[in-house]
């Protein structure tokens, strides 16, 4: 088992390294001069040259990659070309802001999805199942900005004017200091994510509930609740860990649109801004961050999967 996990870890590290390479190359291709981008219409040749030197844009590529990679190990993500300060300071608040959004969405959507999924799996074919499944199918098809715009119209600008539609955070104050402004972004993400968890949970649970051992447990005369809790649910742990992982990974990348829509000061907005400004260091950092979240979360899910499977868990015993 430990070998299995170690192997998985190693693979993740290799993938992560390849990702750094890819991120670096991809950002190199960004056209336009960051120095010009910073200066905008106000750029004069002298100011551009001065800035380029200051940003080490005149060094060879491999040297830039190595020093960037080296910096990653020491927690130095480079210097933002547009703030001309460290990327870490620029991103610190944004990362925690995005995390708040993600964690809230995950914390709400996961149990909700699991509950809906289990509930519908238990009453497959009945009215309740059909309603929940139908609704989740429809919501799952909608692009997130459609959901977001609909919520804004409904709750912020037109129908009811009860919730703020944008996030305004005074400096030094955390995004969660005014919880009401988190409602709509979180709700949008929850609506995007829950249907998937519901559907996956329903499918997993349906399969488990149809399995021989659940039927056997029933034939042993056990109560439906015991059957569910002791025999069925443990088998959903692995698959559910996978779904939740994918959802989390998606959330990390998918917040871009939602943050843009709600002007939420997170990494997604930073990314769009940075791509526009050719702020290579920030693009690299954010992309890498999102990719790392994906890799780590998937790694965790796999480890949970391994731990939850007695066959793999007991491998070491034999």
């Amino acid at each position: 088992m430990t070998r299995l996990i170690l192997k998985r870890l190693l693979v993740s590290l290799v993938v992560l390294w390849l990702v750094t390479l890819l991120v670096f190359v991809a950002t190199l291709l960004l056209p336009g001069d960051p120095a010009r981008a910073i200066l905008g219409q106000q750029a004069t040749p002298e100011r551009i040259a001065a800035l380029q030197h200051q940003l080490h844009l005149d060094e060879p590529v491999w040297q830039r990659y190595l020093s960037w990679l080296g910096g990653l190990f020491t927690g130095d993500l480079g210097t933002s070309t547009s703030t001309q300060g460290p990327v870490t300071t620029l991103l610190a608040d944004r990362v925690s802001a995005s995390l708040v959004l993600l964690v809230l969405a995950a914390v709400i959507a996961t149990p909700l999805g699991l509950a809906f999924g289990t509930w519908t799996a238990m009453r497959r074919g009945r009215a309740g199942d059909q309603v929940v499944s139908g609704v989740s199918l429809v919501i799952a098809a909608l692009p997130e900005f459609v959901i977001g715009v609909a919520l804004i119209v409904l709750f912020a600008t037109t129908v009811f004017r009860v919730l703020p539609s944008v996030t305004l955070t005074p400096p030094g104050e955390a995004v969660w200091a005014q919880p009401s402004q988190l409602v709509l972004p979180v709700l949008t993400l929850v609506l995007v994510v829950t249907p998937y968890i519901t559907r996956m949970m329903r499918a997993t649970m349906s399969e488990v509930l149809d399995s021989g051992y659940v039927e056997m447990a029933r034939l042993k005369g056990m109560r439906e609740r015991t059957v569910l809790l002791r025999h069925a649910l443990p088998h959903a742990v692995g698959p559910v860990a996978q779904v939740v992982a994918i959802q989390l990974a998606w959330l990390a990348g998918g917040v871009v649109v939602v943050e843009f829509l709600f002007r939420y000061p997170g990494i997604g907005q930073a990314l769009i801004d940075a791509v526009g400004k050719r702020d290579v260091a920030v693009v690299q950092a954010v992309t890498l961050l999102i990719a790392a979240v994906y890799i780590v979360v998937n790694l965790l899910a796999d480890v949970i999967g391994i731990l939850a499977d007695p066959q793999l868990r007991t491998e070491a015993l034999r």
Partner: protein
Amino acid sequence: MTTAMTKALEVTGLAVRTTAGRPVLRSVSYEIAPGEVLALVGESGSGKTTAGLAALGHFRRGLASGGGQVVLHPRDGEPVDILTLDDAARRQLRGNAVAYIPQDPALSLNPALRVGRQIAEVLETHGYAGAAGERVAEVLAEVGLPSDEAYQRRYPHQLSGGQQQRVGIAMAFACRPSVVVLDEPTTGLDVKTQALVLETVRQLTSEHGVAALYITHDLAVVAQLADRVAVMYQGDLVECGVADDVLRRPKHAYTKRLLAAVPDLGAEPAAAPPPDDAVIAARDIRMSYGQHKVLRGIDLAVTRGESVMLLGESGSGKTTLSQCIAGLNRGFTGTVALEGTPLAPAARQRSTDELRRIQYVFQSPFSSLNPRKTIAQSIEVPLVRLTSLSRTERRKRVAETLDRVRLRPDLANRLPDQLSGGERQRAAIARALVTTPDVLVCDEVTSALDVSVQATIVELLGELRRELGMAMLFVTHNIALAPEVADRIAVLRGGEIVEEGAVEAVLNSPSHEYTSELLATTPRL
């Protein structure tokens, strides 16, 4: 109360239908006395499992009761019609008064729970009076398994198939039920394990006076175990009576067919063919999967026109060896020679003529034909690859071969899933024969098929061999087939040939103890 003691289960007019309304059971009635074993036989899909589960008042998803009574006489208590009870009351009886032993223990044991726990669960659910731990150990011992703590802490995947099945039986007997339903508990087990399980069942039922409904389609098992037999056919009980009666003097046509299909060890062996030099010869074949040595130096030769039976229990390496011969395995050492010419190990390296002359029939007809190709298309592949026949010639050859394996020409354009198992196996055999090979390797070609179909395939192969005069290596684990198909027997055990000789000699005076054991445990009518 006296009548209650003579009947443990009484089923009258039981009907089951799908929720869409299609009848699955029409009107099934039977009864079982305590200590008695009633065998329920019938072809696949006839409704055996459905009838068995109804005895527990359980219907699978999509099925529902269509009337009738299932009266249970618990050991201590009033008789009840389980179908009239509510869910909670049914639960009370299940696992307690009436228990179920599933067909496939690998699927029915929860892979995430330790086996001891799973047995203890039944006891806890039904509020077992004594110490549950002791009872678990006791019942494990009863089914002939180690009862120690360490064993109880194993997970299902750490047990062999036979052990898993016995855990299932232990679970069923844990609460000392008055009725057990055993759903083909020995299918998928090898003969020896099967014998062990059957022994356990017989002992437990008679010792504790338990009524057993034993579902199977293997009449040989029935002859050994059952007191009475009930035959099901398409949702109806067509015949029911004392085992001897039914087996000796079957009334229903289906029962007769079933009986005719059972291979008989006592049959006259086929006449030995004239000896000739080896057309195919394997020399010192060794092969391992990682650390696991599967073949440990096999020498085997088949002469022209001869049929050799390769006999061995599951996992002994039969398939591995035959695939080495067919060129489907790479990593083996030793040589396979065709009329003295050594062959390359992998099929891709062999010449088309070599490929043409050795043909292999796969174990399962359900996976050896591409589900997306018509039968004719599949049969045509070897012709396209290995011969230079024109399209029309190929068509003609395919038609001839279909005729040879007794397949109707109109089946040629069907897809495999539109054929029955037997028909598919014939198609697979046709594919092997279409290039008129010199050597035919048949890998357990009957084991995936129903008993009644088995017989026809064996018969067909015998005829074809005589007609075409090819050499045949017939791989099986069923020694009962020997007289019908083989001239010689080679017994494979643990990757070695432990015994080899003419059929008669081996059957009458086996030299290796494994062979004698096999002969002893093989159920006969």
